[in-house]
């Protein structure tokens, strides 16, 4: 029997949750005040996922960086790999919100998309 301790993030209460695990199976959740804590704990110990946000370089745009995110949440264990895969990525302006920057990041099947509009730099006049 394995015990995992978590803090519930659903509200400011921040219940200290205790999850009893038998291998990959959740045996019990305690310490929660409401149902949401139970649901959160079960997901968090069996398949924790996160949306990952970062930035990549842009060439020829009004800004040097464009913010990006994973289109859906990816397994928590893949975060470092995802960030590493973005390290040398550079895109060409213009870039618009929702544009796919990298497909299937770190083998997760999830795409990286832009979260900001970066227009082309206007050519200098004269």
């Amino acid at each position: 029997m394995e015990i995992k301790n978590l803090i519930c993030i659903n509200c400011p209460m921040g219940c200290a949750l205790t999850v009893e695990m038998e291998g990959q199976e959740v045996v019990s959740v305690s310490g929660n005040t409401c149902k949401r804590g139970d649901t959160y704990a079960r997901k968090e110990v069996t398949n924790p996922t996160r949306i990952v946000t970062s930035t990549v370089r842009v060439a020829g745009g009004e800004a040097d960086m464009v913010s990006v995110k994973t289109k859906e949440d990816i397994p928590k264990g893949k975060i470092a790999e995802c960030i590493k895969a973005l390290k040398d990525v550079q895109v060409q302006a213009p870039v618009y919100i929702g544009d796919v920057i990298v497909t299937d990041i770190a083998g997760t099947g999830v795409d990286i998309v832009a979260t900001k509009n970066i227009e082309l730099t206007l050519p200098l006049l004269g």
Partner: protein
Amino acid sequence: MINYDIVIVGGGPAGLAAAVCAKQNGIDSILILERDKELGGILNQCIHNGFGLHTFKEELTGPEYADRFIRQVKDLGIEYKLNTMVMEVSQDKIVTAMNREEGMFGIQAKSVILAMGCRERPRGALNIPGYRPAGIYSAGTAQRLVNMEGYMPGREVVILGSGDIGLIMARRMTLEGAKVKVVAELMPYSGGLKRNIVQCLDDYGIPLKLSHTVVDIKGKERVEGITLAQVDENNRPIPGTEEFYTCDTLLLSVGLIPENEISRGMGVEINPVTSGPKVNESLETNMEGVFACGNVLHVHDLVDFVSEEAAAAGRNAAAYVKAAAGSGNPADSDTVSTDAAGEQSTDNSGAVEVIKDTIEAHEIRLIPTAGVRYTVPSTIRPDHMDENLTVRFRVGSVYKNCYVSAYFDDERVIHRKRQVVAPGEMEELKLTKEQILQYPKLKTITFKVEEE
């Protein structure tokens, strides 16, 4: 002199939402003045997700949330000027601004919406001893450098203060390859949202030391390390608890201060607790026709509530402009009659207004006490109230299994159970006009935290 019905100072989340709502309420002559090179304000550097859960029922990043409002502003054809700094607003609502193209210029506004946001409390406000080496940044400055400019402020980081920006930057710097050694918080509780503590610190094994502060900064040219010490209940460092951390960077996330230089300059009365204007139910300051919303009014945790509050300010400014046109200026009266859509329009009869005033026009004071630090608004005029009014406030410390209550004079009218309230999470209670009209002689509404 250029003329606009409504001039909005600041093109961040508050200014954008106020503009959209004022336009939707029938005002066409609106100008937003923004000092940065783009609209969206601080959202542009907040690339993390979690914005918009209340407003759009989805988790957006900061730039995406801003874009939703920027698109509305553009689609509605609302005018804005970028790279434009407002220098001053006079008592008669002449806005003095400047930019590179037009130099210094004046704008006569009928109504002004203050939406300047806030800035970070700097090192100078903290009395940390030591030299003034390079490597000390406010968390928001570091955020801008990393997320917008593409620079890393340092490699080994200590963060003082557990405000949300500091927590977010602990994760961001870690993902970008820095080693974040510790987050120290002076108070015995964190100033940030719970989800940020879990997802930004716990996920990455970054320790949070509560009741700790920085007592020394080592390094003359560049930060070489800092000394943390535990503090007692009076926030005094306890001798013998010092710990030294080598680092090249110290980030400060120690609070936000509403940016009210322009407000003060025009004579707006400031609440010393929030450092923001005192406002009535319409979010109008003591200066008639001058409204405030967003972080310039009081610092929020969630942008969704900024948008909601700003929309109310925009709606009320629109009503003010229409009412002023109806009562005084005959040249504008035709616009009033066409714009008065649906809701109770009091613009056409001055006589009715006067009678109504003598019956209902009084002001109810909102009094924060017993754990409640402030309320926004500070006063309510029942005759100007919408059907529903959200009163927002913060508490002074952490209370568990408590109630937040509102007393109408001496009678407890609202009594809501809360499992926990904390200074880091803004609270609200909703009042209805119907409720208040049941107490025609009501003088005060007192807000309290009650422990059973």
